[in-house]
């Protein structure tokens, strides 16, 4: 089941929430829609599901336009953030709910429910009411309902955001496994960039009513289309610094030690540079007058150390080192770049050049 969005626009009372959304999703693809809250990602999902009207544009499933089709005829399922389980029905009936409404034969319903329960490993809980289940189990019931319906397109609206961090990691791989096993085309809405990075085949980044970028997780990480995307992906967050372009040696200078080689000729003086924290380096300096920054904060995570430091020109940088360090706030350091960096146009905020290596 392939899906196509063509120039999708949505306005509420004349105020646009989405404008000119274009995307193609292939059969069997895990497609994540990511963006900050309020960017319209849930709206996009609900338009695809047929729960709200499309103001303008075309949505196609398998090449067939489905704009006017009722939700139930689009042959898809949806998993919600708050699970959308009926509290007065037990697990089994909750899963069979839609099948019964579609007047499927009793035998077939039984078979599908049993299969779905098995897939999510809840067979022992089928008599329970939702209130007697934990959050993770409830979400698995919601997944089972999607599985039982046999539709090949599954939409998920922030399904893991009510779960605690450990469970979330576990469910991520479970959902991914299910998607592979059942060959689902899965549209997954989330505000969590890590979920998108770890699960998706392709990611659509939405912000400010527009698609910012559609790419593979690595594509988005390695070649962010603009400053917003670079900022949104990666943890700890990318350093966004301002610098001057020196045309004579193809360099952007942030300060005297922090310089970026640029691979092509640029035509402006001021640029915004994005450097991932792991693409920065530093060495400690004993002399207080030397160096270009002083350490403000140190977080030791065991496998890596995150140092945040204040450059002498007033900008803050985060630097990640892949080892354990003993360094105290206030120490002088010389912060440098390892080479990889993104250069963004200061006005349009989109990618102007990429710097790779020195």
């Amino acid at each position, binding site marked *: 089941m392939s899906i196509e969005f063509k120039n999708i626009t949505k306005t509420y009372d004349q105020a646009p929430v989405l404008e000119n959304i274009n995307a193609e999703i292939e059969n069997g693809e895990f497609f994540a829609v990511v963006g900050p809250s309020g960017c319209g990602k849930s709206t996009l999902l*609900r338009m695809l*599901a*047929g*729960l709200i009207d499309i103001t303008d544009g075309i949505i196609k499933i398998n090449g067939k336009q489905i704009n006017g089709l009722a*939700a*139930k*005829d689009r042959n*898809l*399922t*949806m998993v*919600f*953030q*708050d*699970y*959308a389980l*009926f*509290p*007065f029905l037990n697990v089994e009936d909750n899963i069979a*709910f*839609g099948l019964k*409404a*579609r007047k499927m034969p009793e035998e077939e319903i039984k078979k599908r429910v049993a299969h779905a329960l098995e897939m999510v490993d809840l067979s022992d809980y089928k008599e329970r009411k939702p209130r007697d289940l934990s959050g993770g189990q409830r979400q698995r019931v919601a997944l089972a*309902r999607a599985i039982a*319906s046999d539709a090949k397109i599954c939409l998920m609206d922030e399904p893991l955001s009510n779960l605690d961090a450990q469970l979330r990691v576990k469910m991520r791989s479970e959902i991914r496994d299910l998607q592979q096993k059942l060959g689902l085309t899965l549209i997954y809405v989330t505000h969590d960039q890590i979920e998108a990075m770890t699960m998706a085949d392709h990611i659509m980044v939405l912000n400010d009513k527009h698609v910012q970028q559609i790419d593979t997780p690595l594509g988005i990480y390695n070649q962010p289309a603009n400053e917003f995307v670079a900022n949104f992906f990666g943890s700890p967050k990318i350093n966004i610094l301002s610098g001057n372009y020196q045309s004579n040696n193809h360099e952007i200078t942030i300060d005297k030690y922090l310089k970026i080689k640029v691979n092509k000729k640029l035509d402006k003086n001021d640029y915004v540079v994005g450097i991932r924290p792991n693409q920065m380096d530093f060495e400690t300096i004993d002399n207080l007058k030397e160096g270009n920054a002083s350490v403000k904060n140190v977080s030791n995570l065991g496998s890596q150390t995150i140092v945040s430091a204040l450059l002498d020109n007033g900008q803050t940088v985060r630097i990640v080192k892949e080892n354990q360090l003993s360094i105290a706030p206030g120490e002088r350091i010389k912060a440098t770049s390892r080479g990889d960096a993104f250069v963004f146009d200061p006005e349009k905020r989109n990618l102007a050049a990429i710097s790779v290596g020195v």
Partner: protein
Amino acid sequence: MENLNQWTGSKKTWHYLLLIILSLLILGPFIIGLWTSLLPTADISSGKLFIDNISLDNYWAALTQTPIIRYLFNSLFISILTMICQVFFCSLAAYAFVFIDFKYRNFYFYLVLSTMMLPFEAEVIPNFQTIKSLGLLNSYLGMVIPFMTSAFGIFMLRQSFMQMPYELKEAADVEGLSHWQFYLKGALPYSKLSIYTLAAYSFLSAWNQYLWPLLTTFSDDYRPVQVGLRELQSQETFNNWGMIQASAAIIVIPTLIVLYFGQHYFKSGLNEGAVK
């Protein structure tokens, strides 16, 4: 600290004293009524209330010599029919106000709500005209039709439907449930508590109707108990006070039964509607 304890201790005593006096004030008439229903009329009229020849004779007389059984049946029939209609129509209207998006939805809702401000007495004359021209005076339908729905019921069920997570409706849409299916299998069971409350409430208000049946019934065939009781009193030959008390006690019984079983839902349901 001791002072404080003394103070709170005596405060408690005063509270209880006040509560006991109030409950005696409220319960007094009931107890007197129940007591006199067990006494012979001759003794009541001569003011001899504290005698020991109590009996259930008055009850037997009420049941055999007056049409009270017929009244009870009429009331029961009217109340149950009103209750069913109210639950059905109010829940349908509330469903539409919550789950169906139509133009001027809020305006219509406030219009419905504004009828709550209208005292029933103001509706009596137009309603009477309507029922009269429908030829339904002195009939069961004439007593049910004006009360088939109520603004309060719509309001209460709307509040309770609004508390359902909207995702449930969306899930039902994706699963292919029609409005009817979602109404029957989703909305009603989810709001069970409020439905019970409305059922009990509408049953009781229909049971306790007085003015309307007084105006629209002319024969014992359709007269409900509350009016019937009054009728017993006003019959000239009838001044058997013991029997009247016994009849009054009899007609309270169904109310008590409904309240006893509905109490739990009644409280929580009414509060539920009020919180949001």
